């Protein structure tokens, strides 16, 4: 899937291709959202509206020998890695024609054909499985990097500390991709803990660190390619923190003078985007940002 060479600027056709992909992923999620509103699914589904740039760029940086470990919120990765709307819908309907033959549903959905060999809905559970996969790659001298997707909630688990420590100690080819949306269910980071400086944390164990924000797909892709190269060549783990905004949150009036923000976590979104599927006309929305930049020819 390598389309680019690290450190070169993305050409405009690639930028528009990525922008179109992100837009299409949004459209499919919105179609699935409609089906959720109609009550078609019995299973819990976690949409990833606002997370599309991370997964689209990772799919481009991903090598066929790489492995991908996901979490309960995996729809954006399944779409970026080639799952169709029909495959996903049928999986969520638990039909044999689904992506995993209707056996895994949403929160454990995996697609080994694309390198996604494990998905867990338990916070922090997939870190250690990634260690074993990476150790096997290293021992067998196989190419490949293990991309493990996690979030700002899961890094609060002790398993994250253990996994970074072990991967650094054994020099395992792992990229810890932390999708930081600043929320864990309905509780923001500010409400539940002190800030974690992942750069300092990683540095304390001689692990490299990169951070991404604002849905800048040029920067996202180049950083991911660069990170992959460091991990593959040096067999040294890296932490890649990506700021994301889970769109679809809403306010509820508590009394006459106050309202409370409810962060989107799971289930159907009840607010309407515009005709392009855009929720926010700013850098928090990857559809808006990628289309804007693509149209401007910035890339």
């Amino acid at each position, binding site marked *: 899937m390598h389309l680019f060479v690290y450190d070169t600027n993305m050409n405009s056709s690639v930028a528009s291709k990525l922008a179109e992909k992100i837009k299409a992923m949004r459209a499919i999620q919105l179609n699935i959202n409609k089906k959720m509103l109609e009550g078609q699914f019995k299973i819990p589904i976690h949409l990833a509206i606002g997370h599309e740039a991370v997964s689209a760029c990772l799919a481009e940086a991903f090598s066929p020998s790489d492995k991908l470990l996901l979490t309960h919120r995996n729809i954006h990765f399944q779409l970026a890695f080639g799952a169709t709307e029909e495959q996903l819908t049928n999986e969520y309907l638990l039909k044999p024609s689904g992506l995993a033959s209707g056996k895994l549903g949403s929160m*454990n959905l995996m697609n080994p054909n694309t390198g996604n*060999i*494990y*998905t*867990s809905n*338990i916070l922090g*559970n997939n*870190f*250690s*499985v*990634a*260690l*074993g*996969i*990476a*150790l*096997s*790659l290293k*021992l*067998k001298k196989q190419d490949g990097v293990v991309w493990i997707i996690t979030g700002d909630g899961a890094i609060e688990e*002790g*398993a994250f500390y*253990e*996994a970074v*420590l*072990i991967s650094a*100690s054994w020099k395992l080819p792992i990229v810890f991709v932390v999708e930081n949306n600043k929320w864990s269910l309905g509780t923001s980071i500010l409400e539940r803990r002190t800030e974690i400086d992942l750069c300092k944390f990683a540095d304390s164990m001689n692990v490299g660190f990169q951070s991404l924000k604002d849905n800048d797909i040029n920067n996202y892709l180049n950083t991911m390619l660069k990170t992959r190269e460091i991990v593959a060549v040096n067999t040294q783990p890296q932490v890649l923190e990506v700021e994301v905004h889970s769109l679809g949150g809403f306010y509820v009036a508590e009394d006459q003078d106050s309202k409370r923000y409810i962060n989107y976590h799971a289930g159907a979104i009840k607010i309407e985007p515009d005709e392009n599927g855009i929720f926010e006309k700013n850098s928090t929305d990857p559809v808006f940002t990628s289309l804007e930049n693509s149209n401007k020819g910035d890339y």
Partner: protein
Amino acid sequence: MELTFTQYVNTKIRHNFSSYEHSVIFGQNIVSGSRISGLGAGLDQISNCVAFNTTNSENSLMGLGFGLALSETPSLFLMKQHDFALLGLDQLTNTHNVLRNGRLLAPFIVLMVVIDSGFEGPQASLSSLDEFASLSRAPIYFLSSKENIDKAFEMASAPGLHLMALSQKNMKNICTPSQLQVTDCDGAIIYKYLPNKDNPKIAVVFFGVNISIAREISEELSNKNYCVSLINIIKLSKIKLTSPLFYEITQHDTIVLIDTGKSDVHFSTDLAFNLKENGNNINLYQRGPSQKWSVVSDDAIEFDVQSVVQKIVKGTEIV
């Protein structure tokens, strides 16, 4: 040459892992220091096998084995104490629940030492294998005799999770082949004492890591001319009513179930219930729960050989 349980298990590990193209043996202090009282001796010399000491991160180490098995790399997690595995229960339960339907492509063995020597305190002396087998939905192999060990390692060459338990008390004891008539029956080894068809048939069914009490009871009953089958469970799991093992157990006049585990729920209780429903004459001996388990104690089993034997003799007089 006579081998101790430690040495014999060590040879079985080396035998299994020398046959793989790539494999991993890992755990805390397994190839340095005492190497878990010798269990880890020479494991770093196995060709094509990487054996190494790890960090103290049991949860991650448990998941590590699953990741290796997903990648077709056989592995063994050698664990000094059974209670350490509590930290890996998320992996044994949640990860195994997702992967146990054919997704594990290589064996992943977790070998735990059950600390049953006494005076280790209430935490280290955990012996709750029933709960582990129940939560993980994987049988636990009791490494309680040479025959059990042979069978357990044979089964553990298949892809998937394999949990094994070894008695610390047994580790320095000699592990010799039985001189009795031995048969392998569907997850258990049957040792026949005095196969005299005219006398009452007694089955002593044993669940545990250290078979010595069941062996002593069987010998005592045998000395009193009963026809005894010591049925040593290898795989701690639910024994189905339709299984050959259940049928074999029911073919005895009296059944003595002995369970030395410290769980609050037992697979042996389930077996006792089904045998009773089947109309069999059963005597069930299980441990505690005891207040002694919450303090440092000798950890002695709460019933003894003579009391068990006397009760059986009283209920099954030889004419």
